[in-house]
Protein backbone atom coordinates (compact mmCIF):
# COMPACT_ATOMS: atom_id res chain seq x y z
CA UNK A 1 0.00 0.00 0.00
CA UNK A 2 1.34 3.43 -0.87
CA UNK A 3 1.15 4.76 2.72
CA UNK A 4 3.22 1.92 4.22
CA UNK A 5 6.06 2.23 1.75
CA UNK A 6 5.98 6.03 2.16
CA UNK A 7 6.54 5.52 5.88
CA UNK A 8 9.30 3.00 5.13
CA UNK A 9 10.97 5.43 2.77
CA UNK A 10 10.70 8.25 5.29
CA UNK A 11 12.19 6.04 8.02
CA UNK A 12 15.02 4.94 5.75
CA UNK A 13 15.78 8.54 4.88
CA UNK A 14 15.52 9.60 8.53
CA UNK A 15 17.95 6.84 9.58
CA UNK A 16 20.40 7.89 6.90
CA UNK A 17 20.38 11.43 8.15
CA UNK A 18 19.78 10.77 11.85
CA UNK A 19 23.30 11.82 12.79
CA UNK A 20 23.49 14.37 10.03
CA UNK A 21 26.56 16.45 10.91
CA UNK A 22 28.51 13.35 12.02
CA UNK A 23 27.50 11.66 8.80
CA UNK A 24 28.88 14.49 6.72
CA UNK A 25 32.17 14.63 8.64
CA UNK A 26 32.67 10.85 8.98
CA UNK A 27 31.70 10.20 5.42
CA UNK A 28 33.98 13.06 4.39
CA UNK A 29 31.35 14.59 2.15
CA UNK A 30 33.24 16.92 -0.14
CA UNK A 31 31.84 19.79 -2.20
CA UNK A 32 31.53 17.71 -5.38
CA UNK A 33 29.50 15.08 -3.54
CA UNK A 34 27.38 17.80 -1.93
CA UNK A 35 26.79 19.34 -5.36
CA UNK A 36 25.83 15.88 -6.68
CA UNK A 37 23.36 15.30 -3.85
CA UNK A 38 21.75 18.72 -4.32
CA UNK A 39 21.59 18.24 -8.09
CA UNK A 40 20.12 14.74 -7.74
CA UNK A 41 17.52 15.99 -5.25
CA UNK A 42 16.49 18.66 -7.78
CA UNK A 43 16.34 16.18 -10.67
CA UNK A 44 14.10 13.95 -8.56
CA UNK A 45 11.59 16.75 -7.95
CA UNK A 46 11.65 17.56 -11.65
CA UNK A 47 10.78 13.92 -12.30
CA UNK A 48 7.79 14.04 -9.94
CA UNK A 49 6.65 17.34 -11.50
CA UNK A 50 6.72 15.86 -15.01
CA UNK A 51 4.39 13.06 -13.89
CA UNK A 52 2.11 15.66 -12.28
CA UNK A 53 1.94 17.91 -15.34
CA UNK A 54 0.99 14.88 -17.45
CA UNK A 55 -1.56 13.51 -14.96
CA UNK A 56 -3.34 16.21 -12.97
CA UNK A 57 -6.53 17.99 -13.98
CA UNK A 58 -6.36 20.43 -11.06
CA UNK A 59 -5.13 23.85 -12.22
CA UNK A 60 -3.50 24.68 -8.87
CA UNK A 61 -1.63 21.37 -8.78
CA UNK A 62 -0.53 21.93 -12.38
CA UNK A 63 0.68 25.46 -11.60
CA UNK A 64 2.60 24.15 -8.60
CA UNK A 65 4.20 21.37 -10.67
CA UNK A 66 5.18 23.87 -13.38
CA UNK A 67 6.85 26.02 -10.75
CA UNK A 68 8.75 22.95 -9.51
CA UNK A 69 9.96 22.30 -13.06
CA UNK A 70 10.93 25.94 -13.58
CA UNK A 71 12.66 26.50 -10.23
CA UNK A 72 14.51 23.19 -9.86
CA UNK A 73 15.74 23.41 -13.45
CA UNK A 74 16.96 26.97 -12.82
CA UNK A 75 18.83 25.94 -9.67
CA UNK A 76 20.32 22.86 -11.33
CA UNK A 77 21.42 24.87 -14.36
CA UNK A 78 23.12 27.36 -12.04
CA UNK A 79 24.83 24.52 -10.14
CA UNK A 80 26.06 22.98 -13.43
CA UNK A 81 27.34 26.36 -14.62
CA UNK A 82 29.19 26.89 -11.35
CA UNK A 83 30.87 23.47 -11.51
CA UNK A 84 31.80 24.05 -15.17
CA UNK A 85 33.33 27.39 -14.15
CA UNK A 86 35.30 25.62 -11.40
CA UNK A 87 36.29 22.96 -13.95
CA UNK A 88 34.84 20.30 -11.68
CA UNK A 89 32.30 17.53 -12.04
CA UNK A 90 29.74 16.34 -9.49
CA UNK A 91 30.82 13.16 -7.72
CA UNK A 92 28.47 10.19 -7.44
CA UNK A 93 28.00 8.89 -3.91
CA UNK A 94 25.89 6.55 -1.75
CA UNK A 95 23.49 9.30 -0.65
CA UNK A 96 22.65 10.31 -4.21
CA UNK A 97 22.17 6.67 -5.11
CA UNK A 98 19.80 6.07 -2.20
CA UNK A 99 17.82 9.20 -3.05
CA UNK A 100 17.43 8.02 -6.63
CA UNK A 101 16.48 4.48 -5.59
CA UNK A 102 13.72 5.78 -3.29
CA UNK A 103 12.55 8.18 -5.98
CA UNK A 104 12.19 5.38 -8.54
CA UNK A 105 9.85 3.60 -6.09
CA UNK A 106 7.85 6.77 -5.55
CA UNK A 107 7.56 7.47 -9.29
CA UNK A 108 6.14 3.96 -9.78
CA UNK A 109 3.54 4.57 -7.04
CA UNK A 110 2.51 7.96 -8.45
CA UNK A 111 2.29 6.66 -12.00
CA UNK A 112 -0.34 4.14 -10.87
CA UNK A 113 -2.69 6.87 -9.60
CA UNK A 114 -5.24 9.16 -11.27
CA UNK A 115 -7.59 12.01 -10.41
CA UNK A 116 -7.97 13.22 -6.84
CA UNK A 117 -5.99 10.26 -5.48
CA UNK A 118 -3.04 11.27 -7.63
CA UNK A 119 -3.30 14.94 -6.66
CA UNK A 120 -3.32 14.14 -2.94
CA UNK A 121 -0.42 11.66 -3.21
CA UNK A 122 1.68 13.97 -5.38
CA UNK A 123 1.20 17.02 -3.16
CA UNK A 124 1.68 15.08 0.10
CA UNK A 125 4.91 13.66 -1.30
CA UNK A 126 6.02 17.18 -2.25
CA UNK A 127 5.42 18.30 1.35
CA UNK A 128 7.44 15.40 2.81
CA UNK A 129 10.14 15.58 0.18
CA UNK A 130 10.71 19.33 0.56
CA UNK A 131 10.69 19.04 4.36
CA UNK A 132 13.35 16.34 4.12
CA UNK A 133 15.54 18.03 1.48
CA UNK A 134 15.32 21.42 3.21
CA UNK A 135 16.34 19.98 6.59
CA UNK A 136 19.24 18.14 4.92
CA UNK A 137 20.40 21.30 3.15
CA UNK A 138 20.14 23.36 6.32
CA UNK A 139 21.60 20.90 8.80
CA UNK A 140 24.11 18.91 6.75
CA UNK A 141 24.96 20.05 3.24
CA UNK A 142 25.27 23.83 3.57
CA UNK A 143 27.32 23.76 6.81
CA UNK A 144 29.71 21.22 5.24
CA UNK A 145 30.19 23.16 1.99
CA UNK A 146 33.66 24.68 1.63
CA UNK A 147 33.37 26.62 -1.64
CA UNK A 148 31.82 30.07 -0.98
CA UNK A 149 29.99 30.28 -4.32
CA UNK A 150 28.46 26.82 -3.95
CA UNK A 151 27.48 27.64 -0.37
CA UNK A 152 25.82 30.85 -1.54
CA UNK A 153 23.96 29.06 -4.34
CA UNK A 154 22.69 26.32 -1.99
CA UNK A 155 21.60 28.94 0.56
CA UNK A 156 19.67 30.86 -2.09
CA UNK A 157 18.15 27.61 -3.34
CA UNK A 158 17.07 26.70 0.20
CA UNK A 159 15.14 29.98 0.42
CA UNK A 160 13.25 29.06 -2.73
CA UNK A 161 12.64 25.48 -1.59
CA UNK A 162 11.24 26.74 1.72
CA UNK A 163 8.62 28.66 -0.26
CA UNK A 164 7.91 25.45 -2.19
CA UNK A 165 7.34 23.65 1.11
CA UNK A 166 4.87 26.36 2.19
CA UNK A 167 3.15 26.29 -1.17
CA UNK A 168 2.83 22.48 -1.03
CA UNK A 169 1.45 22.60 2.54
CA UNK A 170 -1.20 25.14 1.54
CA UNK A 171 -2.12 23.07 -1.49
CA UNK A 172 -2.36 19.90 0.64
CA UNK A 173 -4.84 21.68 2.94
CA UNK A 174 -6.90 22.76 -0.07
CA UNK A 175 -7.04 19.19 -1.41
CA UNK A 176 -7.98 17.71 1.95
Amino acid at each position, binding site marked *: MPKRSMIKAALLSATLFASAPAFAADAGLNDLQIADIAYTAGEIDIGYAKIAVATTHDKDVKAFAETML*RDHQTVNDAASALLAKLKAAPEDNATSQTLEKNAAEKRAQLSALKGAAFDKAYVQNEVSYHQFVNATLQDTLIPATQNAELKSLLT*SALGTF*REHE*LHAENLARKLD
Partner: protein
Amino acid sequence: MNIHSIAAALLLLAASCAPTPGAAETHVVEISNMAFSPSELHVAVGDTVTWINRDLVPHTATADDGAFDSGSLKTGDSWSYVVKDAGETAYSCSFHPAMTGHIIAR
Protein backbone atom coordinates in the same frame (compact mmCIF):
# COMPACT_ATOMS: atom_id res chain seq x y z
CA MET B 1 29.72 88.92 -1.89
CA ASN B 2 27.19 91.67 -2.72
CA ILE B 3 23.40 91.75 -2.12
CA HIS B 4 22.64 90.79 -5.74
CA SER B 5 24.63 87.57 -5.66
CA ILE B 6 23.19 86.67 -2.26
CA ALA B 7 19.68 87.20 -3.64
CA ALA B 8 20.54 85.13 -6.73
CA ALA B 9 21.93 82.36 -4.56
CA LEU B 10 18.81 82.37 -2.37
CA LEU B 11 16.51 82.23 -5.41
CA LEU B 12 18.49 79.32 -6.84
CA LEU B 13 18.29 77.52 -3.50
CA ALA B 14 14.51 78.13 -3.28
CA ALA B 15 14.00 76.90 -6.82
CA SER B 16 15.93 73.68 -6.22
CA CYS B 17 13.99 72.96 -3.00
CA ALA B 18 10.52 73.63 -4.34
CA PRO B 19 8.90 70.45 -5.75
CA THR B 20 7.91 70.72 -9.36
CA PRO B 21 4.12 70.42 -9.30
CA GLY B 22 2.89 67.07 -10.77
CA ALA B 23 6.33 65.47 -11.25
CA ALA B 24 5.85 61.71 -11.38
CA GLU B 25 8.22 59.51 -9.41
CA THR B 26 9.64 56.07 -10.08
CA HIS B 27 9.57 53.57 -7.24
CA VAL B 28 11.72 50.45 -7.32
CA VAL B 29 10.54 47.15 -5.85
CA GLU B 30 13.32 44.61 -5.54
CA ILE B 31 12.39 40.95 -5.84
CA SER B 32 14.86 38.96 -3.76
CA ASN B 33 14.92 36.19 -1.18
CA MET B 34 11.44 35.13 -2.31
CA ALA B 35 9.90 38.51 -1.35
CA PHE B 36 8.95 41.90 -2.73
CA SER B 37 10.92 44.71 -1.05
CA PRO B 38 9.28 46.92 -0.02
CA SER B 39 6.15 44.78 0.17
CA GLU B 40 3.98 47.83 0.83
CA LEU B 41 4.48 50.80 -1.45
CA HIS B 42 2.79 54.21 -1.20
CA VAL B 43 2.67 56.05 -4.50
CA ALA B 44 0.87 58.87 -6.30
CA VAL B 45 -1.38 58.24 -9.32
CA GLY B 46 0.85 58.72 -12.35
CA ASP B 47 3.96 57.35 -10.60
CA THR B 48 5.88 54.43 -12.07
CA VAL B 49 6.59 51.24 -10.15
CA THR B 50 9.57 49.24 -11.44
CA TRP B 51 10.08 45.66 -10.28
CA ILE B 52 13.55 44.18 -10.65
CA ASN B 53 14.21 40.46 -10.13
CA ARG B 54 17.39 39.92 -8.15
CA ASP B 55 16.54 36.32 -7.29
CA LEU B 56 17.92 33.28 -9.07
CA VAL B 57 14.50 31.91 -10.02
CA PRO B 58 11.87 33.60 -12.23
CA HIS B 59 9.03 35.60 -10.63
CA THR B 60 6.05 37.70 -11.67
CA ALA B 61 4.25 40.73 -10.27
CA THR B 62 0.59 40.02 -10.92
CA ALA B 63 -2.25 42.15 -9.58
CA ASP B 64 -5.10 40.26 -7.87
CA ASP B 65 -7.67 42.40 -9.71
CA GLY B 66 -6.00 42.04 -13.11
CA ALA B 67 -4.72 45.63 -13.17
CA PHE B 68 -1.21 44.54 -14.15
CA ASP B 69 0.89 41.47 -14.92
CA SER B 70 4.61 41.62 -15.52
CA GLY B 71 4.76 38.13 -17.02
CA SER B 72 7.76 35.96 -16.19
CA LEU B 73 10.80 37.96 -15.09
CA LYS B 74 14.14 36.09 -15.25
CA THR B 75 16.98 37.01 -12.93
CA GLY B 76 18.09 40.56 -13.81
CA ASP B 77 14.88 41.41 -15.70
CA SER B 78 12.83 44.46 -14.77
CA TRP B 79 9.31 45.59 -15.62
CA SER B 80 7.50 48.89 -15.07
CA TYR B 81 3.89 49.87 -14.53
CA VAL B 82 2.40 53.38 -14.48
CA VAL B 83 -0.17 53.61 -11.69
CA LYS B 84 -3.47 54.72 -13.20
CA ASP B 85 -6.00 54.61 -10.37
CA ALA B 86 -6.11 55.61 -6.72
CA GLY B 87 -6.70 52.86 -4.16
CA GLU B 88 -5.05 49.71 -2.89
CA THR B 89 -3.91 46.98 -5.26
CA ALA B 90 -2.83 43.64 -3.85
CA TYR B 91 -0.47 41.62 -6.02
CA SER B 92 1.54 38.41 -5.86
CA CYS B 93 3.99 36.28 -7.78
CA SER B 94 1.90 33.92 -9.92
CA PHE B 95 4.59 31.23 -9.53
CA HIS B 96 4.99 31.61 -5.76
CA PRO B 97 1.68 32.48 -4.06
CA ALA B 98 3.36 33.12 -0.69
CA MET B 99 5.04 36.20 -2.23
CA THR B 100 2.67 39.15 -1.88
CA GLY B 101 2.74 42.93 -2.04
CA HIS B 102 0.49 45.99 -1.97
CA ILE B 103 0.49 49.23 -3.90
CA ILE B 104 -1.38 52.05 -2.19
CA ALA B 105 -2.01 54.93 -4.56
CA ARG B 106 -3.46 58.36 -3.81
